[in-house]
């Protein structure tokens, strides 16, 4: 605050307020001083408004009130947005007064007496023009796009903005000069389009022309500045200076390129391209030394790239041709070995991967089995859980449910007894049947054994009678023979 106060007091003094030496801060300002300061400032800022205000505070209360009100009005007219009234001046509070005085001090015209005497510089004029333009545009109200008049459109619309897009133009040069080749002159006469038809839009034409003009001008200025600072000191003619400079630059470029190519050669096997570069560098120096007369950088670069010596070219071709087959076989072998290595790597990878997959399959089957087991387990447990759940559900009404359960158990035992009785009756009947059938079977067995015996007896009889028959047959035969012999 001290600093602010000091600056404020200084600016108040410059606009004519007699602030006593011992007053160092706004706190020490009394009402008379405040009124005087404000009035003086107002007079400087706006002479017509301040002239009818007295800077001396009258003793009468009503007059004081009047002067306070008119001061407040004047401040508001100047655009002070804070609260201000007669009480601000007559019953002042320090922050209010500080704010008001800061506002007034900002409004004070700065160094007006200096500006009036000194001729304005170029930038000051420009800034002032910018200021007036901004002020003018600020005073215009904003209009919606459809309501804009032509003037408002110019300042408020941005619909037709184009980028600053400069393109190179081809312009006819000084055709009366002797050094122009006839081909170029013919081009200028017959084929060069008019400058307005070279570019598609008026704004890019404007941009390109302005750019061209400015770059030409600045190139000239740059050259002049350099010539004045360094060229004259070297005591050479401009042409000599230029060629000297060109040589120096060429040397630097060449050195840089050489260093780079050497670095390349250290790192890699020198290929034909680096050799080309070295050759080119040589050609560059030779040409640069020979080319003493001035030519633009562009023509020089053209020569540099396009007009190579045919001899140099053939040499380059030969070298390339020689290096080609050697390099081919070497390269091929290297490639072959590297490819084989790659294949081996890949095979190993494949083996490892297949083993991995087998392992994974195994683990999958194991996991499936485990999962099955767990599922079974789970089912069992689910059943148990169901039963238990039922039990738990029944628990709350235990007595009722118990009775029900008892009843169920009773009924089931009764049913059980019933069923047992039924079963018993069935069983008796079936057992009887069973017994009878067994008896029948025994009888049948006895009968069959008897039959068997009979059959055996019969069989024996048959055999005995067969034996007898045979004996009787033999006897018959003997008898027949004896009879025959006797006859």
């Amino acid at each position: 605050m001290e600093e602010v106060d000091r600056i404020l007091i200084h600016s108040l003094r410059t606009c004519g307020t007699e602030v006593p030496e011992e007053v160092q801060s706004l706190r020490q300002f009394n009402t008379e001083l405040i009124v005087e300061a404000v009035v003086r400032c107002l007079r400087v800022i706006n002479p017509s408004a301040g002239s009818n205000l007295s800077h001396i505070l009258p003793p009468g209360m009503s007059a004081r009130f009047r002067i306070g009100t008119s001061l407040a009005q004047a401040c508001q007219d100047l655009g002070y947005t804070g609260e201000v009234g007669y009480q601000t001046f007559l019953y002042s509070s320090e922050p209010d007064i500080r704010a008001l005085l800061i506002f007034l001090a900002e409004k004070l015209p700065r160094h007006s007496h200096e500006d009036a005497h000194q001729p304005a510089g170029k930038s000051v004029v420009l800034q002032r023009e910018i200021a007036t333009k901004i002020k003018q545009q600020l005073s215009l109200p904003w209009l919606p796009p459809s309501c804009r008049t032509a003037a408002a459109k110019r300042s408020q619309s941005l619909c037709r903005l184009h980028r600053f897009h400069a393109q190179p133009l081809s312009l006819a040069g000084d055709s009366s000069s002797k050094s122009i080749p006839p081909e170029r002159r013919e081009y200028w006469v017959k084929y060069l389009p008019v400058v307005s038809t070279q570019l598609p839009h008026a704004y890019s034409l404007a941009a390109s022309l302005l750019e061209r003009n400015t770059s030409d001008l600045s190139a000239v200025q740059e050259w002049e500045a350099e010539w004045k600072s360094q060229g004259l000191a070297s005591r050479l003619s401009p042409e000599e200076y230029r060629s000297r400079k060109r040589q120096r630059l060429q040397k630097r470029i060449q050195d840089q390129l050489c260093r780079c190519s050497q670095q390349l050669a250290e790192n890699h096997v020198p290929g034909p391209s680096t050799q080309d570069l070295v050759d080119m560098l040589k050609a560059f120096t030779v040409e640069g030394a020979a080319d003493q007369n001035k030519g633009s950088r562009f023509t020089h670069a053209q020569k540099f790239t396009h007009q190579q010596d045919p001899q140099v070219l053939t040499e380059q071709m030969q070298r390339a041709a020689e290096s080609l087959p050697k390099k081919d076989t070497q390269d091929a072998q290297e490639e072959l070995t590297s490819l084989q290595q790659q294949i081996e790597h890949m095979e190993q990878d494949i083996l490892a991967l297949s083993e991995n997959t087998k392992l994974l399959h195994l683990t999958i089957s194991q996991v499936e089995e485990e999962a099955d087991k767990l599922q079974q387990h789970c089912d069992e447990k689910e059943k148990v859980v169901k039963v238990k759940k039922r039990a738990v559900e029944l628990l709350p009404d235990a007595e009722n449910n118990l009775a029900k359960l008892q009843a169920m158990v009773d009924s089931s035992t009764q049913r059980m007894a019933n069923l047992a009785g039924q079963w018993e009756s069935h069983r008796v009947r079936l057992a009887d049947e069973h017994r009878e059938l067994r008896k029948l079977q025994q009888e049948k067995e006895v009968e069959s054994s008897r039959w068997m015996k009979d059959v055996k007896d019969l069989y024996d009889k048959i055999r005995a009678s067969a034996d007898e028959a045979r004996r009787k047959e033999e006897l018959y035969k003997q008898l027949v023979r004896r009879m025959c012999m006797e006859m």
Partner: protein
Amino acid sequence: MELSEESLRGLHRLADPAQFSLKAFSAVLRAAFQSLSPEQAAHPAVDGTVFQHIPPCHIKECQASATTCILEAVRNNVDRAALSTFLEDCKFDKERLEHFWTEYQKHRETLEILLENIGRAPPHVSDVSWRLAYKIKTNQLYKTYRPSYLVKLNLESRDTSLAQDISFNCSMEQLQDLVGKLKDAAKSLEKTSQM
């Protein structure tokens, strides 16, 4: 106002009555002005009869020079006295000077607009609407109880169909910061206008 050597050469040639008759001069000048007017869709055809004795490369050179001169004059906003002295340095006689000035006055505004329209500008904010939301809680905080402002800036852009509005959400402090910055900007603009 300064011109490059190339353009000055063209202007000198244009000023020379031995090379360019007054008719030819006015034709070149008209062509130069018309090539810069944006409404001119068709490029001005150079009337052959006026230029019978002049080599075409001179015409092209002079037209380029005249166009550059006009553009530089508009760019530097030169007044009549400055332009007269400049053209007199290029050996323009009174008649040609008068002709140049009248043509220049005729096209001045369109040329100014042409040059003014070179450049870029961010889209203009034409309106703002806002809404106050009271945030009770967030995903992270159980209790926030803070106001949050949803501000939408309406933009005016070169194409109304492309005009996109900017909407954002900010806390009270951020909004205060924004308002303060806007006030600063307005104040500094005002200060610039009072220099």
